[in-house]
């Protein structure tokens, strides 16, 4: 490895087995207070339903648990360690004050069914966040019930369907650009819509003629991501909306990329009828290794009657409450009110930023993406030269000639101390390198990234095999995914 990196090195790291391998009968990390009511005979109370044995559940002590998970954690990369430029994922800084306020007693321990009289704090948080998000999106109403983006998509399409039904024709199809994220078509299918692909033009935007041609009274809506997954803003958004609306269709916006727009432009102002947000992207709630998320859906007035129940309202006496009587509602998409803990964090994020901070955040996010684009142009193939917003998508075309693909470059990037970008998405770019730095990266960190990417490009020329064998610095490397899928081992078994 000729090029060594300024960004990272290697250090001693603890091995750790499965927790089951540390278990031994009689070890315990738990202790219960003395029981203040009479002991009971479970056999008597439960009869045949009494459980006698808990199988191979582990028995370990507290320090072993602390060490187990602390050791495991050191095997992870994280935003707290460095740049995490996963395109479309908006891996931004997760402020710690958000974690602190989410753990304040009355907020962490509120029961979803406690009387509204003693739930005004939670209701106020829901109301305030709802108001802020409708202002930010330029929409009229919102539901915070969906648990993630995909869940929001489903909720949004259910409302689209309900809207058309109320007009007498539920319609059959959803148009989805070929650049769209997999959840879009998957969601359309769940709501029992047929998916019709819409091709992109040479600039990576919706091809207007095709849209005009494909649009008709069978089309319920277009699911558009804007900026789209190429990081490109749909400049003819106005015409797109016009074409849809002319035929009674609705414009659904996948808001996964709102980090490019907050404070600079509002979807509600450019013709969007319904959209979802990802609080775990744009609004800094932590990804936590895959979740939890929160996918609020904001709509224009005409769709408000169809919002899931309940919705928070201000009652006659000025207090807040839940309204359940929503005759036109699409119904519940989740028990209770959604991922409330994420609302708390998102609101704290908005408060910490204010209008000026939110705008600056968006500007920095776009600035960072363009800085990287500038730095790597020429080194990596840029399939679409259209201006980038918050992310930039390259392809491995140049490196592929040496047999090195985007995933190989990604793996080598790990040796340089970075988390890889998003690979092989969007599908319209063969061998895509989808890079989203977010606003959270310093100039220094991005220069190290650019340096690393350039260095890898050189390595591809000089020693492609070394790149193909990467990563070289990790405790494990190139795990066998084929074997994993062929004979799945999905759980530990004794003596396995």
């Amino acid at each position, binding site marked *: 490895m000729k090029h060594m990196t300024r960004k990272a090195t290697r250090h001693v790291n603890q091995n750790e087995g499965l927790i089951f391998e540390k278990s031994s009968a009689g070890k315990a990390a738990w202790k219960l207070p003395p029981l203040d009511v009479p002991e009971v005979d479970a056999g008597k109370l439960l009869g045949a339903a009494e459980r006698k044995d808990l199988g191979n559940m582990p028995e370990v002590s507290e320090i072993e648990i602390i060490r187990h998970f602390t050791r495991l954690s050191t095997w*992870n990369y994280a935003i*707290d360690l460095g740049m995490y430029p996963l395109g479309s994922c908006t891996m931004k800084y997760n402020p710690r004050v958000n974690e602190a306020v989410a753990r*304040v007693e*009355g907020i962490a321990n509120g029961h979803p069914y*406690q009387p509204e009289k003693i739930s005004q704090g939670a209701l106020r948080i829901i109301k305030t966040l709802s108001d802020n998000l409708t202002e930010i999106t330029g929409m009229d109403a919102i539901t915070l019930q969906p648990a993630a983006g995909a869940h929001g998509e489903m909720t949004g399409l259910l409302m689209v369907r309900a809207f058309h039904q109320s007009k007498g024709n539920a319609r059959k199809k959803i148009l989805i650009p070929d650049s769209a994220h997999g959840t879009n078509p998957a969601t359309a299918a769940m709501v029992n819509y047929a998916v019709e692909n819409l091709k992109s033009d040479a600039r990576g935007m919706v091809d207007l003629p095709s849209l005009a041609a494909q649009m008709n009274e069978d089309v319920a809506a277009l699911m558009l991501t804007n900026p789209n997954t190429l990081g490109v803003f749909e400049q003819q958004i106005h015409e797109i909306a016009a074409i849809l609306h002319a035929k009674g269709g609705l414009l659904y916006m996948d808001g996964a990329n709102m980090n490019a727009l907050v404070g600079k432009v509002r979807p509600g102002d450019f013709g969007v009828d319904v959209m979802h947000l990802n609080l775990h992207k744009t609004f800094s709630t932590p990804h936590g290794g895959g979740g939890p998320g929160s996918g609020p859906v904001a709509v224009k007035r005409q769709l408000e009657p169809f919002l899931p129940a309940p919705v928070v309202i201000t009652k006659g006496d000025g207090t807040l409450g839940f309204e359940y009587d929503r005759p036109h509602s699409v119904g519940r998409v989740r028990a209770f009110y959604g991922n409330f803990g994420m609302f708390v964090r998102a609101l704290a994020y908005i408060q910490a930023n204010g*209008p000026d*901070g939110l705008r600056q955040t968006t500007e920095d996010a776009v600035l960072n993406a363009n800085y990287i684009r500038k730095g790597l142009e020429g080194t990596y193939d840029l399939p679409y030269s259209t201006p980038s917003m918050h992310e930039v998508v390259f392809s491995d075309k140049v490196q592929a000639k040496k047999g090195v693909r985007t995933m190989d470059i990604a793996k080598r990037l790990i040796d340089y101390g970075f988390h890889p970008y998003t690979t092989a998405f969007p599908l319209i770019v063969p061998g895509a390198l989808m890079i989203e730095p977010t606003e959270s990266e310093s100039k220094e960190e991005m220069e190290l990234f650019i340096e690393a990417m350039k260095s890898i490009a050189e390595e591809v020329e000089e020693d492609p095999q070394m790149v193909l064998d990467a990563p070289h610095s990790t405790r494990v490397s190139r795990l066998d995914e084929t074997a994993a899928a062929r004979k799945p081992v999905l759980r530990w078994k004794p003596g396995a």
Partner: protein
Amino acid sequence: MRYLPKSPADREAMLKAIGLRSVDDLFTPIPAEYRLTRDLNVPRQMSEPEIVDFFRQRSRENGDGYTSFLGAGAYFHYRPVIIDSLISRGEFLTAYTPYQAEISQGTLQSIFEFQSMICELTGMEVANASMYDGSTAAAEAVMMAVRLTGRRSVVVARTLHPEYREVLATYATHQGMPLSIANYGDDGRLSLGELEKSITPETACVLVQSPNFFGIVEDVEAIAAVAHKYGAMLVVSIAEAVSLGIVEPPRSADIIAMEAQSFGVPLGFGGPYCGVIATREKNVRQMPGRLVGQTVDKQGKRGFVLTLATREQHIRREKATSNICTNQALVALMVNIFMTVYGKVGLKELARQNLAKAAYAVAQFAKHGKVPFAGSPRFNEFVVQTSEDPYAINSRLLGHKMVGGLPLKKFYPELGNAALWCCTELTPRSAIDTAVGLVAESERSVRSAKEEVEEVTR
């Protein structure tokens, strides 16, 4: 803005490098007429102490310091301190989905352990990495059964959590999945007779919750027998995970859809919680959600990866088993740590304390009021019938900083003044006694009022 790692000079230099004059040049792709020329109307930038004060204030308005007898799908159990110590480590908290296995083994191995423990506890063969919550897990489990059986109609026990039923209805509407509701009998359990009436050869699955919404353990074996007789699958929803410590899991179920909130997840006014689906190995390819599998790296070292992704939306798009992408990973980690802390013996003892508290409360309530379905086996919830409207009783309890049981009218009008009460290991005996006392008082006053009336009418 204090989260942004840039100085004005940095921004200048970067713009220059890109070859732009001003930040606005970055936004030219956005049609000018849409660009926002004003500040967003959101609160001004707040300092950290102001933010902390804001939420402390909200907390005070939110039942802080009340003793609660509420359960009904969200349970108040003690959360060992180490759960937050560990999940707060940035390496867990600020990592994305473990797509890059080499630098995600921490998350991957912990999910593998989570899947394994869920299997141990449910008696199933495979479990996924998590679903949004118990309600969506139940709905997705039903759709999974529909795919597996090739049938479309579904029988749902009326003893399933009413909000779970609503969610299923929403998911089912446009799937052309006819739902029929089977009622409960005098014992508060799904009536087998009703079940027989609703089930047909077109039934894909029967969905039942155990312990059910009344806190009663359903006769899963008998229900399974009926379902399987008709070639239907049995989907069992578990809302109170702690019950698994002392209640036999529904081993005869084909799919289990669980809400694991009880395992170390804060009540948090309803979320985030942790759904999970478990089933038999043969059904795994129709399972929604992420799965972690064991494998080896190029040196033959054991490691873990996301697997069977061909079920998922990012590969199969409209043909995927579900559209779920982001799940509840960090919450699943809380659950994982909780299960590890209590383990084989602790979970049983914890469940036993819940059983004892509820049994004690039932005995006390029974002395003064009616406790329906008394004969049926139950875990830590029970129904109490009062002569007075439970809302009235509850508002009196509030005065004692107590939150009474959940009035059932709204979901089960036929039950009149019944309310659903819950006791966990955290419910002090003294609180139970006070609550029972207030209910007893209410009964007495109603009775004497009645007597007066009788007096008069005599």
